[in-house]
């Protein structure tokens, strides 16, 4: 049986980055759903501060020292962005919007190094995350980062580059098997000349655009990128493809085909209303079933955000969260390829599991870090940082456990240990784990005992699940 408390926590884990530090007695599924949606009506753009990009020409004319200084500033801007986004995941009231943004960042997966491009990409997705998918799709076809990543600046009438057209159908809308190689070729022609300038603004280079007749997915005409989107969106398969991916991300790695079909029909009939699709998921009973609760492996960012929120952790070195993301295998704006992060069991291997289990101690008890991230391939684009969290180093943090501690009774050991574990774990703790932690904390008192209980609980394999 899934308790009411677990259901509310489930809602916050799946539709956000974990439950807020609130007393369980204040939880109410109906109200929490309504708060989640109303808070996410709001949109807060990400801003780029303390950094001004220079033109490529100016950059070329700089001295070697100035170039190095500029690169350093650019790195710092990336660190700042990473920090700001992590902070949104941890603290933003618009948690559903942030989570949906996180999903789309894995969907329209893209490696971006330029801070201006990163901010534009993030804000486009964030502002359209819960709207109509057709609007988002059309905006992403015009997004500089995506156009750059998929080589569309090299897609010209004289020598078409098929990369963008192919991924548009294979990964962003229809899935393999629902289009032909000829559709890829014709789609690429429709996208010729669609590019961006150095400020990250979309431009159409008319001289490179192919204005001829194209045959695409059974339609014929002088198509451009918007027309491609329109034709693709008219196929129910597109709604099915997106629905299935959303189901796998928010509900279960293994899709229930009947439910996906039902959701997808409603999604298509609503004109691709993403918010309504999410409403349909969270208002269902199956969303809170045993097989869907506490069974997903947290992504590295979900894991980090949850811990940081519980103890209001601050990093002395702002680059530390980037190092953690690298070791755990999910650095923002650096997916393995355009297919995004595979997720699920792919997050877990021998070293990443040990690292995850040691993280509470590393962040809250100055335990030595047991691993360092791999060196990057290149010297230019990389998100270089110092080795703040390298092997044997200690991660310097400050934190505040008062918000967490006040949710639990300091005196009744058994009751509060169970309460802490129920708050932190979505996969129910077995009696032997409760006994183990009780034993380990038996000589500790009051707030210290609550703190240690939380650390042990967050070090359990069960804490990797949500």
């Amino acid at each position: 049986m899934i308790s009411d408390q677990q259901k509310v926590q489930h809602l916050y884990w799946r539709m956000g980055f974990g439950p807020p530090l609130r007393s369980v007695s204040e939880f109410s599924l109906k109200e929490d759903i309504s708060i989640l949606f109303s808070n996410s009506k709001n949109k807060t753009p990400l801003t780029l501060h303390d950094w001004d990009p220079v033109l490529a020409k100016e950059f070329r004319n700089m001295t070697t020292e100035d170039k190095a200084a500029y690169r350093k500033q650019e790195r710092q801007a990336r660190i700042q962005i990473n920090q700001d986004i992590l902070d949104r995941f941890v603290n933003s009231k618009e948690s559903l919007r942030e989570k949906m943004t996180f999903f789309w960042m894995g969907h329209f997966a893209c490696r971006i190094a330029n801070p201006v491009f990163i901010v534009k990409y993030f804000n486009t997705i964030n502002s359209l995350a819960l709207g109509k998918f057709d609007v988002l799709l059309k905006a992403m076809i015009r997004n500089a980062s995506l156009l750059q990543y998929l080589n569309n600046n090299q897609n010209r009438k004289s020598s078409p580059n098929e990369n963008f057209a192919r991924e548009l159908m294979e990964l962003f809308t229809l899935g393999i098997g629902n289009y032909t190689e000829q559709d890829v070729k014709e789609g690429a022609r429709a996208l010729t000349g669609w590019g961006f300038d150095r400020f990250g603004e979309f431009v159409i280079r008319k001289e490179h655009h192919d204005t001829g007749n194209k045959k695409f997915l059974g339609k014929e005409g002088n198509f451009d990128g918007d027309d491609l989107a329109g034709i693709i969106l008219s196929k129910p398969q597109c709604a099915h493809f997106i629905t299935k991916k959303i189901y796998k991300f928010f509900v279960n790695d293994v899709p229930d085909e009947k439910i996906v079909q039902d959701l997808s029909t409603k999604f298509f009939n609503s004109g691709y209303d993403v918010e309504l699709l999410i409403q349909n998921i969270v208002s269902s009973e199956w969303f809170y079933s045993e097989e869907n609760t506490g069974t997903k492996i947290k992504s590295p960012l979900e894991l980090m955000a949850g811990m940081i929120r519980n103890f209001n952790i601050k990093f002395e070195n702002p680059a530390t969260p980037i190092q953690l993301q690298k070791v755990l295998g999910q650095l923002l704006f650096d997916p393995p390829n355009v297919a995004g992060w595979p997720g699920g069991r792919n997050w877990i291997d021998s070293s990443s599991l040990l690292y995850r289990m040691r993280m509470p101690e590393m962040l809250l008890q100055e335990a030595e870090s047991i691993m360092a991230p791999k060196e990057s391939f290149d010297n230019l684009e990389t998100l270089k940082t110092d080795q703040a969290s390298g092997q044997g180093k200690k991660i310097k943090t400050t934190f505040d456990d008062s918000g967490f501690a006040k949710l639990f009774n300091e005196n009744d050991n058994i009751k509060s240990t169970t309460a802490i574990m129920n708050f932190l774990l979505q996969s129910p703790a077995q009696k032997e784990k409760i006994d183990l932690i009780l034993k380990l904390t038996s000589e500790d008192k009051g707030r210290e005992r609550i703190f240690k209980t939380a650390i042990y609980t967050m070090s359990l394999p069960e804490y990797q699940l949500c």
Partner: protein
Amino acid sequence: MLKTAMMDPLNRKQFLKLSALASGSIFIPKFLHGLGKSITPLAAESGKTLIVIQLSGGNDGLNTFIPFKNDLYYNLRPSLSYQSSAVLKVTSEMAFNPGMGAMQKIFDQGDMGIINNIGYPNPDHSHFRSMDIWTTASGSDQYFDTGWLGRYLDAQCNPCEHTHVAIEVDDTLSAALKGASAKGLAISNPERLYRVTRDPFIRQLSEGSNASANATSSRSYLYKTLTETSDSVEYVYDKSKIYKSTVQYPTNKFGNDLKLIAELICSGSETKVYYISLSGFDTHARQKQVHERLLTTLSEGLYAIITDLKKNNQFDQTMIMAFSEFGRRAKQNASEGTDHGEANNLLLFGGALKQKGFINELPDLNDLSQFNLKYGVDFRSVYATLLSKWLNADDQKIIGSTFEKMKFI
């Protein structure tokens, strides 16, 4: 600051508390317990081993193996070429980079094969994407979730009980060694990782009743991974103590990593695949000095491990492959460096090599694609050859399509 037992694995009081809770198994001497029994004599395990060396950043093949009689080479690289007086000549037309003295010795011993023009169709110039293609063995228009050696693990041992079948000498695991169900073990310092897994709290969890469960649920998958990790780390730690090499390795990380691999091989570890990286090959500017130094590191490390393996009669059972995600542009750039290119060389070492020296035709500098070397051999042919002829595995199933096998094995 609070302290707990987890911070200090040797905290006696906490350890005793845990011991009281633990099953009796903790007190069984290790040599009677599971993996502890497999302390085998040196190199008792026969069987073939593959060592994969990833040269990250894009090694410049054309300044690694230098066509010192080819005018086109000197035209393409007016200030980045090596004069014929400076290079290490190995054939009438080819020479090694001056930093590769140690590798020249390997070549002269007949222990080395070089495949030219290695690459794949529609090459990608991004490090990240091209490395993704090499590690997952995909085509340039395909995206795979799993690595080629991970899929080898999936195919070979189902279920895979020991992650040490494939070891990456590093802290974190490369995509190459991640399969759908089986994954390799990343380990850079066996003793350190052993101490982590012996932490009383982690040990309690890895030896608990959850351990034996099938990995059907996510939860049991996590516990299964934890138990396998502890077992494999203990296995590797035990093996690493058996044979201590007396061969002189270069005193750098790459040398140390290779030494660990040699020690594990000579101790009879069950490991079939070792994976190791050397990075820094992205030489866009002032290339010569950096590149030479890297090639020296590579050459001296290889010379040491080959010497070590020969001494222990293991070289005939070992195949070493070194690759890079792409070659560099044949034409130098304006910063005394080279930009991202396409086809490259792939290096093979082993006592069982059937083809030695420069195995196929040399790069044609007359036939470039926008100043890049064109590919002639698909890297997946090399993978297919290693998988089927060396590791006895089903290459077609693992790679996902058929590639012609080569004759070097």
